[in-house]
């Protein structure tokens, strides 16, 4: 039981990193960014390109590359459709995601590549009869620091306050002097940084890279956001932890004959939650147009 809990917290932390990256853009501009998965994928390949350098240098370069790609996406694609309907934004990000995937497929090929990140973190430490991977501890620790850092940024810095204002009511915020382009660009930058760090941990855990690897994390991220509540950042993190707990517990306690259907049950659960509470567990009605 306790072991399952530790697993759930570790998985939930990684999911939360991804979910927050998506939720940030959703709360400010109503964009559900499918291409977030491709930012994670680019982060993975960037790890491969910069392998061999000291880890700290690699990490900084990976974050820089992914943030750059996020900003480029904003400038080239999303700025032109800013303010269009939610469906148009969703389709644009879907198209962008497949475009980037096709590009990486063209240059890197479809075959999975393997890369070893943070090899020394593969070991486990034993605490009170539990075996906890060092990687899990690193994921939990870094996620906690990043979430607290983001909370501080949004509360205490002028830019953070502008972002919160924009998330509340973009038009009113603009009228009061919030610079839209700057705020949106910063949001894409922060979202990219979260994607890069999630990519490092994801690849450290699985060790493989494919051009399609972004899909599954981004779906998990969506589900977490929907589950937690649309339009609130901390709700996205909450959703990620609830989802991880649900997955781990179903994995552990579902009869073996049902085990293959676990994901089907999880996604059906999402549909049920959406129908019962269209605004998620902790969402507030009226926060977004759903």
């Amino acid at each position, binding site marked *: 039981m306790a072991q399952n809990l530790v697993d759930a917290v570790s998985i939930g932390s990684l999911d939360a990193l991804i979910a927050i990256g998506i939720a940030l853009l959703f709360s400010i501009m109503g964009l559900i960014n499918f291409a977030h998965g491709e930012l994670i994928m680019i982060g993975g390949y960037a790890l491969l390109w910069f392998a061999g350098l000291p880890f700290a240098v690699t990490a900084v370069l990976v974050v820089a590359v992914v943030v750059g790609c996020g900003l480029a996406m904003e400038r080239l694609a999303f700025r032109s459709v800013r303010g269009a309907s939610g469906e148009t934004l969703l389709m644009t990000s879907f198209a962008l995601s497949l475009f980037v995937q096709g590009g990486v497929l063209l240059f890197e090929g479809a075959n999975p590549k393997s890369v070893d990140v943070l090899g020394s973190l593969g070991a486990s430490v034993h605490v009170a009869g539990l075996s906890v991977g060092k990687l899990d501890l690193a994921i939990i620790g870094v996620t906690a620091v990043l979430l607290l850092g983001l909370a501080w940024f949004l509360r205490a810095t002028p830019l953070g306050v502008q972002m919160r204002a924009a998330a509340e009511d973009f*038009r009113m915020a603009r009228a009061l002097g919030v610079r839209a382009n700057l705020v949106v660009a910063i949001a894409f930058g922060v979202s990219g940084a979260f994607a890069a760090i999630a990519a490092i941990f994801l690849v450290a855990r699985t060790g493989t890279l494919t051009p399609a690897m972004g899909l599954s994390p981004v779906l998990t991220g969506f589900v977490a956001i929907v589950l937690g509540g649309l339009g609130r950042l901390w709700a996205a993190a909450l959703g990620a932890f609830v989802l991880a707990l649900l997955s781990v517990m179903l994995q552990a306690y579902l009869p073996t004959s049902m085990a293959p259907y676990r994901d089907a049950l999880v996604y*059906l659960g999402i549909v049920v939650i959406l129908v019962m509470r269209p605004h998620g567990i902790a969402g507030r009605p009226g926060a977004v147009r759903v």
Partner: protein
Amino acid sequence: MTSSSTSALARCAPAVACTVLVLAVSGLAMIGSETTQRTATQMLVMGVIAVGTFIFVGNSGVLSFGHVVFVAVGAYSTALTTVPHGLRQALLPELPSWLGRLELGLPEALLISGLLSLLVGVVFSLIILRLDGMAAGIASLALLISVNVVIGNWDAVTRGSQGIVGIPTDLTIGTTVPWLIGAIAVALAHQLSRSGFRLRASREDPVAAAALGVRIRRDRSIAFVISAFVCGVGGGLYAHFLGALTPGDVYLQLTLLTLLMLIVGGVRSLSGAVIGTLFISVLAELLRRIEAGGEVGPIALAPHPGIQQLILALTLLLTLLLRPGGITSLSRGTARVRWRVRRRARWGVSGASHR
């Protein structure tokens, strides 16, 4: 009386033009090579699926990522009823004996598949249509994933990830055309019906439509189940086109292709759905050949995996950015102006700061 019948005729015109276009393209393809004929058959099958999806998405304006579920239901039920029963009992020994013995001709199998999809559509409409906009999109995607997981693991009926093989590949242009024309006719009949008209009114302005007494959810449900039926038939044709069916064939890639056809063609009109299908089918086939490499005329090409996805995604992206109404929207200028005005209204920005 006279004027209303003239306007009904006028409203039929685009669908008639589409039918003529489909017939012309199919006729031309029939004198082409075997590859051309196969491409044309695929185009016709995709046309049924695209028109089926259009009936709901185009008329209601609600995005659905879930219509491939109906394609999947249709494809699997057609496969299960048309694979020769000796082979079927060898492939799927755990199948209930009545289903193991059943062997239908293609038309009967397609109609039964359509009806099964319709039933699934009724269940889904009770769920999805309680939601709107973004939540509906996400819920339909979640349903697609759930159904795909079930198909991928239900070994007794679907043979899991190994898929069903030995489906008769008896489709030709001649046997597929009537189904596409039938789909266009169903779509047209729905558009001309009161329910279809009310649904389009609710797409343009839900609040005003509701105020005028339109029960939006009921009209959406009607379009949804008709759409599910047509997609189910399309799925059956798709199974007979492929000959072997795996869960991956009826998943995200097919979803993308369908939405691509609708959006590039122009999601709001039936002719958009048909023209989008023609355009994307030809483009996808050209790109597939480039991707595979080899000799194209005098030029030798290296294989380029990914180029099809790259260019198709770019097509969709450019359509969304430059021509949100699709290639069939007549006045590009007007559409753009309207779009800018709307954007300005929502964001309170001046047009000058934007480009």
